[in-house]
């Protein structure tokens, strides 16, 4: 029971990362009184002045600004019949905390899904003969059209000062960009980042083999940028401390650089830090929320009344809060009923490291998003239907950081002793990587629910993930492996070593892949198969909106945040234009 009750606000926003800051500013601009509650610390750009972030041990190894597993662990199991165990240390993914959330230390690759990715189910039904895809696959269409969402993708590109080459301008294919991208209404706001040596080598080899490489679309900006909120983002200086690091140069679009300065100047917005939201409180009829309860730093339990609740705590936090609060019916994989928890998906990665004795890659001179990629192996653009699997990959050579702890060494180099020491001297800065990051389908048996055993420090059950690799994703990996190694051979390295999933691999939570967890509270056309409608509004509790990767019915090969930003802005627009006038379900079930 709460021992403190705050003054009522129009909107309470749970979490102040990307989605929370976007929702806050958009709704505050409409004149609403908005309060954000953030579980972590306050964080300002000035906290990360040079040289502080240039510290691999603190940020890259010890995850200094991430939530600790102690506070934020989940449990994980490979199938419904085994017992889930906690993520006692972070590995495959590392969620953020504090103002800015993961948006403070993301890499900044800001790429859109394709129009086919948005309508994957429709594509699969048309292109694949019955029986080709696994029976337990549960993919879905996103409940909006490309044309409806494009203006919001465009707006988020501008908020971030997206830097790169335009590939498709209103249907016209542009030289140097991604010919497979959906038509965009405007060119990229800023030109591409400069290429590093690995980028040029990869792009040249890929082009020679018939692929269509283009610079990674980047939210580390190439030139000074003033965004639609009036915030200024400074040109990137290629400091080499980006993925997992806060930016020391105001160059990475983040909630801080792109939103917070303008937001903090608004009188009708405020925020509390060290405010860990435990539950959404519902009215007795269960149809609307009356606010949220949080624990503050002094151990108080505080009730925050609000007319609208926005859950913006990151994918798995949002789903967990829905489950803890009784918002929507929990998913049951056996009867396949209920919706909260279904369609959990992740992504896989892999790649080949190429060693060149005589080349200097200077890997420390780089922006987070630095790289070249191609999208030729994405749904609809390669022969998936006859190969027998669906989904795609970004195939890229990126150089997110060049920090030395964890440097890859050629096969056969000892991992300790004189051989390791001399190997580090011979090979640090003399390798490049060709990588894949893949989409991931959703399946009947892949879901999240509340763990029956393990609890967090506030006594609440952890979220449990049931997930493993399926044949479809593993076959895709094998196919990509051949493509990557063909490019590697084209580059004639002195040696190379590869790491891909094999057909008997299980999901490994110890090695970093990406913090691109999706699904669990997906958006859809029907309350039978989705927790949220197209406006990210809960079908069951109409004043609860849930922006985040949780809304994706499956994962596509592109990084998620471009679409997460867009659906958040789309939802904010619907709240402003429709919900405020007539609070109630925005889509009739």
């Amino acid at each position, binding site marked *: 029971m709460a021992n403190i009750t705050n003054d009522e606000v129009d909107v309470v926003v749970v979490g102040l990362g990307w989605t929370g800051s976007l929702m806050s500013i958009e709704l505050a601009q409409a004149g609403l009184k908005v309060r954000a509650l953030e579980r972590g610390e306050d964080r300002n750009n000035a906290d990360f002045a040079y040289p502080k972030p240039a510290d691999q041990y603190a940020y890259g190894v010890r995850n200094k600004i991430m939530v600790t597993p102690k506070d934020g662990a989940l449990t994980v199991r490979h199938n419904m019949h085994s017992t889930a165990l906690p993520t006692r240390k972070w590995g495959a993914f590392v969620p953020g905390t504090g103002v800015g959330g993961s948006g403070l230390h993301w890499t900044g690759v800001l790429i859109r899904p394709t129009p086919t990715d948005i309508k994957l189910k429709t594509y699969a039904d048309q292109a694949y003969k019955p029986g080709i895809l696994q029976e337990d696959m549960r993919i879905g269409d996103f409940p909006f059209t490309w044309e409806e969402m494009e203006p919001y993708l465009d707006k988020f590109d501008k908020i971030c000062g997206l830097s790169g080459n335009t590939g498709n301008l209103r249907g016209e294919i542009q030289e140097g960009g991604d010919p497979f991208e959906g038509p965009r209404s405007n060119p990229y706001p800023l030109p591409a980042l400069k290429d590093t040596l690995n980028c040029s080598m990869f792009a040249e080899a890929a082009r020679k083999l018939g692929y269509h490489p283009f610079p990674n679309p980047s939210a580390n900006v190439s030139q000074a940028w003033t965004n639609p909120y009036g915030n200024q983002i400074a040109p990137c200086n290629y400091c080499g401390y980006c993925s997992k690091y806060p930016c020391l140069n105001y160059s990475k679009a983040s909630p801080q650089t792109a939103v917070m300065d303008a937001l903090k100047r608004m009188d009708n917005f405020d925020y509390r830090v060290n405010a860990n939201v435990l539950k959404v409180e519902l009215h007795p009829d269960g149809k609307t929320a009356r606010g949220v309860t949080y624990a503050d730093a002094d151990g108080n339990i505080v009730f925050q009344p609000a007319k609208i609740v926005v859950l913006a705590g990151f994918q798995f936090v949002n789903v967990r809060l829905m489950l803890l609060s009784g918002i929507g019916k929990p998913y049951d994989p056996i009867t396949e009923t209920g919706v909260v928890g279904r369609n959990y998906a992740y992504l896989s990665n892999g790649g080949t490291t190429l060693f060149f004795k005589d080349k200097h890659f200077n890997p420390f001179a780089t922006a987070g998003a630095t790289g070249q990629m191609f999208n030729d192996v994405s749904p609809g653009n390669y022969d998936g239907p006859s190969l027998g699997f669906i989904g795609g990959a970004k195939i890229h050579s990126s150089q997110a950081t060049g920090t030395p702890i964890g440097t890859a060494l050629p096969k056969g180099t000892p991992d*300790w002793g004189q051989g390791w020491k001399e190997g580090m001297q011979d090979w640090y800065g003399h390798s490049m990587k060709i990588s894949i990051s893949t989409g991931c389908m959703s399946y009947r048996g892949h879901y999240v629910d509340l763990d029956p055993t393990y609890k967090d420090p506030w006594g609440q059950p952890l979220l449990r993930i049931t997930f493993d690799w399926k044949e479809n994703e593993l076959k895709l990996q094998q196919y990509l492996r051949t493509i990557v190694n063909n490019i590697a051979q084209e580059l004639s390295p002195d040696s190379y070593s590869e790491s891909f999933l094999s057909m008997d691999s*299980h999901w490994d939570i110890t090695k970093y892949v990406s913090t691109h967890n999706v699904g669990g509270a997906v958006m859809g056309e029907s309350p039978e198969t989705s927790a949220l409608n197209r406006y990210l509004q809960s079908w069951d509790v109409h004043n609860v909106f849930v922006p985040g990767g949780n809304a994706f019915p499956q994962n596509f090969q592109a990084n998620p945040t471009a679409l997460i930003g867009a659906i958040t802005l789309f939802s904010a627009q619907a709240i402003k234009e429709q919900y405020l006038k007539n609070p109630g379900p925005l889509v009739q079930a």
Partner: protein
Amino acid sequence: MLLNKQTSRRKFLLSSLIALPALGVTIKGLTAAAAAEMIAPSLEGYSPTFFSAAEWAFITAACDRFIPANGRGPGALETNVPVFMDQQLAGDLGSEIYLEGPFDLKAPAELGYQIPYTPQEIYRNGIKAVDAWCKQTHRDTFAALDAATQNDVLKKLQASEVNFAEFGEEVLKAKAFFNEALALAKQGYLADPIYGGNKGMKAWIAIGFPGARASYLEWVAQHNVKYPLGPVSLNGDRG
């Protein structure tokens, strides 16, 4: 805790630097890093906070094998890697781990860390077990063995060919202990010197990593040209 130590060490360094000319030592022609390194506390003079004397003997010996002095480039002892390890273990290393039970010691490797130990307990128990095994097998502690035998012991630990359970350690596997220690030693070798290892930024100089320079706008497009400048550290020292 670490912070206090750093400030006092920093103060010590600064005041010593100022005192250098008075002692008749010239710092002209030396980089600040070289000067700082000259007067940084030597490994012999360091008294560990976390490790006991016996554990310290083990750790320095193991570091000397993990990253030995022989061959090209600096070794772990020359770069104070054991100091780094001691300071990390005396600090908050491991406080982030989720350690609520129950524990499944037979969990598949893909599910990661599943033992009920903090890193501090891993070192305490692991060193005890290795030394017990060494005494039984080689009639002496690890630190007292010759380098070839030590390498042999480490290889056995890495391959989990030493059964800790026979020495009362039921939870920890030899390999897990080995991996923990090796990873931390490498981190200390390559981390910023502010954490006590990588003394004089020698590891960075050896591999060609410029440390905390963090500004390469004019370098990024110069392809296949060796970067000419040495490292700087978070403290502003230059190597």
